[in-house]
């Protein structure tokens, strides 16, 4: 005989003098196995109940999945853009334009000093004359330059940092640039990574946009599930009343509705994942062709296993929470009279 039965038997046979309080306590007690079995059963029954109203349930699941696949799809897009841009790394150069009153000896000693730093791979020294020659060759302003009384160009040190420039190293390179600008001999510093800085800003903007949109759409899913569950509670009003009459706890009455929300969320999340995978597959050919024009060996990223799990977890939690909000309010409203 299980402990539960034992307790029940004892309760029934107990003399009326035994305190009711203790009987109430024993009537309330559930063993863990019972509790688990009850949950398992309720979970299954809630799913079956969804299939009882296939059209309404499918509509709700589709609406949820569309709301979820939008931020999910943007997330995948962002992930790919970041991946592409992460691979875009090349040798960066920080140009130091020295004050024109500096002579070659002073400039050379600075150049040596800098080349010993660990974050600098090498320093290329461009004297005023070299600069002039280079300028003449490339610009075609030969005549104008020769008309000038003296060479207007400063000494330039081309600093090659150890790290190549990419989104990941942008911050450290910017720090290095700021650092070099502090030097007394340096009049002006230039890091040829402006395009990358712009890209970083755009990506940052994109990220925030996706987060904000996700928050809005998750709120929408909460409301959709909440509203659906509210109607489900209302349509089962009579059942709720009878359950209260025969001694169901509020938790017991709430449970099937919470599982209903759980299933709406999970199924919506599952469909959203499938939609995202399908969409990724659909755009993959043109996307890869486009990107390969700039960059070779690119493979389009889509949801990986852990992201699918994350998506399902989030959608299950959102579904259950939406149900909780609706149920905790409406079940209290339904009272026996």
């Amino acid at each position, binding site marked *: 005989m299980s402990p539960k039965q034992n307790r029940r038997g004892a309760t029934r046979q107990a003399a009326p003098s035994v305190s*009711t309080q203790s009987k109430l306590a024993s009537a309330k007690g559930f063993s863990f196995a019972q509790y688990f079995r009850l949950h398992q059963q309720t979970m299954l029954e809630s799913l079956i109940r969804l299939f009882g109203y296939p059209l309404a349930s499918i509509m709700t699941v589709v609406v949820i999945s569309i709301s979820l696949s939008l931020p999910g799809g943007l997330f995948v897009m962002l992930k790919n853009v970041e991946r592409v841009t992460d691979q875009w790394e090349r040798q960066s150069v920080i140009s130091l334009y020295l004050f024109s009153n500096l002579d070659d000896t002073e400039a050379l000693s600075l150049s040596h000093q800098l080349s010993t730093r660990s974050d600098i791979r090498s320093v290329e020294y461009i004297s005023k004359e070299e600069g002039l020659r280079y300028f003449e060759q490339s610009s075609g302003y030969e005549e104008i330059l020769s008309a000038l009384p003296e060479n207007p160009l400063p000494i330039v040190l081309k600093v090659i940092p150890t790290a190549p420039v990419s989104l990941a190293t942008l911050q450290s390179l910017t720090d290095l640039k700021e650092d070099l600008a502090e030097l007394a001999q340096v009049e002006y510093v230039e890091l040829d990574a402006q395009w990358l800085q712009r890209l970083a800003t755009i990506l940052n903007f994109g990220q925030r946009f996706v987060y904000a949109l996700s928050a809005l759409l998750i709120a929408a899913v909460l409301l959709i599930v909440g509203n659906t569950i509210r109607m489900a509670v209302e349509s089962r009003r*009579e*059942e709720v009343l009878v359950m209260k009459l*025969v*001694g169901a706890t509020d938790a017991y009455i709430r449970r099937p509705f919470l599982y209903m929300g759980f299933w709406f969320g999970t199924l919506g999340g599952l469909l959203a994942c499938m939609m995202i995978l399908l969409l990724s597959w659909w755009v993959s050919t043109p996307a890869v062709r486009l990107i390969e024009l700039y960059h070779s060996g690119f493979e389009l990223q889509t949801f990986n296993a852990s992201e699918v799990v994350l998506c399902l977890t989030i959608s299950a939690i959102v579904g259950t929470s939406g149900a909780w909000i609706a149920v905790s309010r409406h079940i209290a409203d339904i009272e026996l009279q």
Partner: protein
Amino acid sequence: MEIEFQRVGKKYDSGQEALSQVNFHLRQGEMAFLTGHSGAGKSTLMKLIMMIERQSYGQILVDGVDLRTLGPKSIPAHRRRVGVVFQNHQLLFDRSVFDNVALPLQVSGADPMQIGKRVRAALDKVGLLGKEKFNPMALSGGEQQRIGIARAVVNKPQLLLADEPTGNLDPRLSAEIMNLFQEFNRVGVTVMVASHDLALIARMRHRVLTLNQGRIVNDGGFN
């Protein structure tokens, strides 16, 4: 289960006084009828025992425990010890007879094996054993009433409350239903039946509490 009302009154928010100064003591294993005109307070009295309503004053003792000391969280456990047959909140027509009767057991987390046995035992007692798979809608009024009784007794309650259980039934069926209650009483269940079928009550020879405008005006055997 024994029930004791001590100077109990119930005033609704509307100002209507449904019960006033009600005193009685229903002993363990006793059977009593509650009678009176409609609106005399029969339903209110039963709702107080079920903790569907709370009394405005006085004391209700169930097995010696003052119901006022039980908070909302204790209500479900209290209700599980009482079987009820109420006019409204009857059967659910979206499920079989079996599932209707099984509800109190499911709610208390009973073992599925046990549920099957006990539901069939309860249906057997009310004479509906062969109809467990039917939808209650397909059964007659008297049979539906008996499903309600099976549901009330399936949990082996210590107290059985019935509010007008023979409401719409012809005299022969009514007598059958009353005999059922009497059988449960014979095995030790405390029974209280609200009814205004005075002729039927007279034949049953049990204690009768008569309510009039919220007061008990007569308490004794029916002669």
